[in-house]
């Protein structure tokens, strides 16, 4: 039986080739296989023939929405392959007039969840290039030099995907849903409560102020200021970023100034606090492995507590921090003085 991954791949390829052949779009932005084993990377197909290189599997982690704001994608009719988190980011971008929905063809994929490559390698206990993967209904079957084993999807899926409630984009947000057929594998075992998937938050909350400060100092001081977290984030969509300002430069470029790292990371996390779609890109792309997502997951928990449940990119705007009501809590004023 064909796996759902292969069937989605085939469907993306056919849809992309048809759109390109009919001249309905100038390009299709999706994924193709990367150079490394079990790696998928962003890919742009501009001809029906190139559409055959489009690919879908649980390694298509990269959020594609940020590309739509890039110069190379302007004044073009673009078809884009989107997971649920990406489509939520797109909806925010549309509500903020960042992109023109009319020029887009959105192909929403029935996402099965993403598998971080390092997590898979650690769980397999073998280098990725030695592994052959087979998608089974009960889990992923790994065949390597040490033999075969089947790992449950819970054991290898990204924590962001384990907690995801919107894996497949809403039908109203897309032009077409690419559902695929076959083994409905990874969807099982999802919807683990965020508190469980991000249990580090509770651990950090329980620390004393000094210990917590020391923890974040140690984490943030590894920052090399490459800005990959900002550039990869699908809701970091300011056309001009405060941190790119040169005169005055609000952020000092020195990489040995802890206060500057804190300033950058606190602003980054707060700036997307009520817009974070929980895709996990910030943590995934960080070459120093700083758990940036913990800041945003904590902010999501706090916002829910103070302002009630709000799902960015799903619920109607305005987002909770984009408006203020007289009845609302004011953590910087009244509450802090209690």
């Amino acid at each position, binding site marked *: 039986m064909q796996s759902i991954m292969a069937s989605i791949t085939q469907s993306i390829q056919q849809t992309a080739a048809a759109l390109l052949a009919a001249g309905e779009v100038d390009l299709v932005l999706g994924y193709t296989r990367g150079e490394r084993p079990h790696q998928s990377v962003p890919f742009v197909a501009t001809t029906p023939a190139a559409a055959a290189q489009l690919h879908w599997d649980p390694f298509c982690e990269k959020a594609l929405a940020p590309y739509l704001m890039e110069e190379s994608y302007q004044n073009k009719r673009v078809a884009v392959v989107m997971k649920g988190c990406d489509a939520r980011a797109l909806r925010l971008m549309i509500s903020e007039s960042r992109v023109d929905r009319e020029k887009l063809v959105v192909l929403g994929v029935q996402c099965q969840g993403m598998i971080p490559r390092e997590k898979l390698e650690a769980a397999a206990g073998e280098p990725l290039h030695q592994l052959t993967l087979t998608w089974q209904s009960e889990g992923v079957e790994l065949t390597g030099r040490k033999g075969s084993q089947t790992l449950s999807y819970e054991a290898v899926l990204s924590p962001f995907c384990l907690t995801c409630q919107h894996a497949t984009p809403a039908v109203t947000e897309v032009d077409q849903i690419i559902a695929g057929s076959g083994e409905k594998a990874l969807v099982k075992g999802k919807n683990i409560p965020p508190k469980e998937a991000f249990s580090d938050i509770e651990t950090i909350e329980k620390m004393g102020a000094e210990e917590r400060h020391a923890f974040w100092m140690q984490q943030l001081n590894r920052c090399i200021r490459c800005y990959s977290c900002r550039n990869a984030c699908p809701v970091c969509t300011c056309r001009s970023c405060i941190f790119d300002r040169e005169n005055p430069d609000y952020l000092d470029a020195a990489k*040995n100034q802890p206060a500057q790292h804190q300033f950058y990371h606190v602003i980054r996390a707060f700036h997307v606090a009520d817009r974070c779609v929980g895709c996990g890109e910030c943590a995934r792309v960080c070459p120093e492995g700083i758990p940036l997502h913990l800041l945003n997951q904590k902010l999501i928990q706090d916002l829910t507590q103070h302002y009630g449940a709000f799902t960015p990119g799903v619920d109607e705007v305005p987002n909770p921090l984009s408006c203020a009501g007289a009845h609302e809590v004011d953590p910087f004023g009244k509450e802090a003085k209690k």
Partner: protein
Amino acid sequence: MMMVKLPGYEMLIHYLQQGLGEKQVFVPVSEEGKEGHVPLGSLNKVDLAQMTALTFQEKPLRNSIKSLFFPDTETYLTYRKEEGRMVMETPGEMMSQILVGAKACDLESLNLIDRVFLADPVDTLYAEKRAKTLILAAPCRQQGTYCRCESFGVDRINPAADVTMYQETADAAEPLYLKSLTPAGETFLEEMMKCGTEGEAVAVTEIPWQAVPPGEKPLSPQEVKDQMDTLFEHPLWEELAMRCLGCATCTYYCPTCHCYDIRDFSRQGQEAGERYRTWDSCMFTSFTNMAGGHNPRPHRKDRIQNRFFHKLNYFVKKQGPLACVGCGRCGDACPVGISMDTVLNRIGGDRHDA
């Protein structure tokens, strides 16, 4: 040349610990999965098994050794106002340092940076660190899975260090062999023999260690350069620009990238501050921003194209060799999987296909 046999890696570390007051020693460590060199004196506990594994693994550490010679942030001078006058101070002389566990590609990357920083006008901060650092390197028995050192002409079996370290397997309990390649390396081994190793270090005439010979033919810098000259208008650069995120990860992890910016830092209201240099990246828009507002590389395409042309064309024209040592760090770290192979596969046929 001098060859010495030690009972194990532990003896070397023990000896280095004794001399910590006079020298800063850097050893390979992996913290939370991130590998790099850290001061031996800063470790609460020495994990010998990990250190041995990292030293003799068949790939370089994730963080390159360039930051020990060219730190990401480095002070030129500090300034303050004193009795109505400006007082400036430059940093004092650095302590000598010993770097344990470099790889042949790391050494080659220093050779490439030397061509720029040690040429007239000499970069004194870099030159001081080069002169005051003794390097103990370990060869790679075979080429790493994602390494391209052989293609870039790096002799992974014979790193051009002061001392080379050999061990049959990456087991901390195995005997450790050391071979000096420079006068400084020989002095180091002689001193080690004299003190601290309690007669357990013995001179030997042979080292029982064998490597897999190189299997790939090195690229010709001239051919690559010529090929690149024909590719300036190639659609590849726009393709890469449509995928690149424009972050600085590749350049900051690259062992041969050496661009920096000079800045001043002072806290508001304080009549004091410092002038420092800090790594800069050609992937940033600000890299080529001119005072008048003009930017000669306005598009991401221009910037990513420049990065590869610098490595594969401009550096060859100016200096001779290719400015890549095939360590694979850029491909490891890139959030969207762009590596040197991405370009080489396109310009040189499929010889590099995995």
